[in-house]
Every structure is written in C-alpha cells, then in structure tokens.
C-alpha cells in the first residue's frame, strides 16, 4: 500500500511513481501539486539549513536600523521590537511578533537539522515522527519574509521624521528571506522516503526475529495485499 497516495485536496488515489529531476506530479482530478521529484542530496539541504541558522543569528544579534533625530540616536533589534510592545502592555501582540519571527522559524531550522543530520549519516533521527509533525505545524507561522516587507515600510515611514541608517541585521534579513525560501521549498514529505528506507534498530530486531521464526517453520500470515481498486498514475508537468 506504500506506493499508493491520496491527493490531500480531493482524496483521489494515485500510484506514486519515480519522477525525473525537477518535475512535479499533479493530481489528475483537481490539478493541485501532489509531490515534487525528491532531492535526496541531504548534505546539500543540511549545508543550506546551517547557513540559514548562522544568518539568522546575525539578523537577530545586530540592530536592524538606526535612526537619528536632532543628534539623538536610537536603534532596535528584532527582539527589541517585540520587547517594546511587551513593555507597553501589548504582551499578546509582542508574543505574536516574537513567535512568528523568532520562535517558529528558529524551531523549524533546528528541527530540520535534527532530522537531516542523522539521515545523511544513514541513521534514524530521535523522535522522528514528533519532529516531522512539529515542522508541519511551524510552517505557516514563520513570517520572516513578511517581516522583511514590514521593515521596508517602516523605513519609508521613518524617513519622513528622521534620518535612517540601515544596520547589519537589515542585510542579514534580506539574505535570510531568500535562504529560508530555498530551504522551506524543500518538500518534507520526501524525507519519508529516506526515513522508510533508513533502518530503525527496533524494527530491524523485530524483523530479524520474524525471519528466524519463519526459517524455523513458524510462518506468519502473509502481509495484507493492497486493495484491488484501480488507481491512476499522476499527471506530470515540468516546473
């Protein structure tokens, strides 16, 4: 049953096929994207994710912009912006800003590293299912690119009342926006392919025990056959 899949948008059954590189499988019925050809060069994805993490640290450690009004300078970091809201009693909004720009993107990057590092080495990551679920959960809530647009809008607003000097973090955020887009465009469902063929020590021991039992004539039931339903191969289209 493992090579069958249902379209998440219309529930139509498809048989999963091996796609040539850079191709996308679309649903025959509702035409939404089913999966992309898997990029299984995990070390490349890992390198990108680590770069992202470094740029992320720079973007958070340095001031985004500095403004100057009549000889008085002020500057802020991303966390400083959330903190300013918190001090005003807007803790709910402060939390929202902090979560969407720091917490969720950071957890997503760390979770990816946690998954990909052992997989690239041919081992099964710890708590793999929980981490996969956590990444799926974080995905819509990371808003670095929206924040980047927010910085640009604020710069224009501020330039009316003060002289604005871009900080190091501003450039880091620009780079981070593009890097994150590349990392997050990676279709995580492809990791299931790697996870499935990466041996789980516990399962391996169980299978070995079963094989031994079979060799000794204590055969199990044969595994359940896939349903006799007719299914379609997905339509393919170049990206």
């Amino acid at each position: 049953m493992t090579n069958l899949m249902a379209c998440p948008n219309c529930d139509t059954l498809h048989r999963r096929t091996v796609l040539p590189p850079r191709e996308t499988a679309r649903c025959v019925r509702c035409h939404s994207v089913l999966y992309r050809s898997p990029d299984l060069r995990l070390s490349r994805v890992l390198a990108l994710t680590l770069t992202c993490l470094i740029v992320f640290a720079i973007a958070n450690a340095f001031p985004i912009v500095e403004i100057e009004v009549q000889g008085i300078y002020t500057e802020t970091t991303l966390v400083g912006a959330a903190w300013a809201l918190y001090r005003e009693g807007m803790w709910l909004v402060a939390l929202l800003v902090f979560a969407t720009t720091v917490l969720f993107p950071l957890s997503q990057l760390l979770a990816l590293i946690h998954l990909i590092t052992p997989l690239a080495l041919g081992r099964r990551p710890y708590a793999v299912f929980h981490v996969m679920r956590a990444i799926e959960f974080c995905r819509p809530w990371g808003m670095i690119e929206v924040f980047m647009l927010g910085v640009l809008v604020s710069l224009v607003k501020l330039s009316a009342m003060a002289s604005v000097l871009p900080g190091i973090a501003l450039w880091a955020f620009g780079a981070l926006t593009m890097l994150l887009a590349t990392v997050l465009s990676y279709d995580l469902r492809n990791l299931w392919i790697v996870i499935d063929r990466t041996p789980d020590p516990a399962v391996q021991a169980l299978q070995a025990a079963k094989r031994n039992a079979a060799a000794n004539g204590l055969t199990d039931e044969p595994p359940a056959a896939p349903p006799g339903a007719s299914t379609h191969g997905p339509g393919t289209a170049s990206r």
Partner: protein
Amino acid sequence: MKYLSAKAAGLVACHVCGRLSREVRTVEKARCPRCGAVLHQRKVDSLTRTWALLIAAAILYIPANVLPMMQTRSLLGNSSDTIMSGVIYFWTSGEYDLAIVVFTASILVPMLKLIALSLLCVTAQRGTRWKPHQRTRLYHMVEFIGRWSMLDVFVVALMVALVNIQSLAVIQAGPGIVAFGSVVVLTMLASMQFDPRLIWDQIRDDDTEQDDHD
C-alpha cells in the same frame, strides 16, 4: 475517466505522513501504523470550526479597522493612526506603491479572506457541484496570502521600538493592533480548519469532465 477517492476505497490518508491505512471502525481511535498519528477520514468538525473562527474574525475586523493602531505624541501634538489613515498618509505623501502595498496587505487581504472562506464554507455545506477547480484554487490562494496581512503589526512593532526619543516624539501601540493581530491569526486558523476535500466529496465524475472542458 473514473476517479476513485481514498474514502470510496475504504482507505484513510494520514494527515502527518500521508500513508494510507484501511479504515477500521473501533471504539478506540485508529492510529497510523507508520507515525502513530490519529487517523481521520476528514478533518474533524471542519465546517463548524471554520465557521466559529471565521465569525470571531469578522467581529474583530471592525475594531481592527476603527481603533487606532498607533498613537504618536510629539512637540507638534498628538495623533492616532488607524490602518486606513496610514494608507492615506502614504498616498498623500506621494508614496503610491507603498500605499497600495499596505492597503492590499492590511485591508483588502483580510476582507477577501473572510469573503472567500465564507464562500467555500457555504458551498461545501450545501454540497454544491459548482466549479470545484476554481474553488480549490481559491482555497490555495487564501492559504498563501494569509500571512501577508501581518505586515502592519510588524510595522507598528518597529515604529514603537525605534521612535521613543524623550521630549521629541513617542510612538505607542494602539488597541487596534490587538484586534488586527487577532483577525490575522483567526483567519489563518480558519483556513487551516477547512478541509478542501469537502469541495470534491460531492463531485461526480461526469461533473469533473464538464469542468475540464470549460
């Protein structure tokens, strides 16, 4: 061409890992054999939850637009900015592209999201067979644009943090920002609760054929 859905074949797709399992009806909740997630044929109470979140968002949409997002105190006097007055400010100072960006992200997108999700809910509830492809595309659009309305919240956060120069000017966040942030979060949650498969559950194969040809 006949389309066979997983539901019709007696299969359930895991919402976490996508693995298909045979549907079993037991007292206990069935779990995915691969990842252990609880299996559901469709998102549980999808329409009820979407409606609840949508109505809450629609109610908060009013204070989000009426209450000030930002209050400025300076030597020149006090002023408070709503979302719309921010847009008008950009427009009158000649920043037309920014005025359009802020208007789109903060006023148009939340409004369109409310309308689009209501339309999707109503049509799904009635089992309408009308234009399933377009409705699916509309749903994808709602999911894609949802996050961009956070723009104004980030702008206010940065302005508040930066402009706090003693005796020159102080910018404070207004109560509107709480309402506005809630609208964004609620509409995002609403679109996550909606199950796009409901659009297709009522579609017969001959309907799909017709839709493909127009």
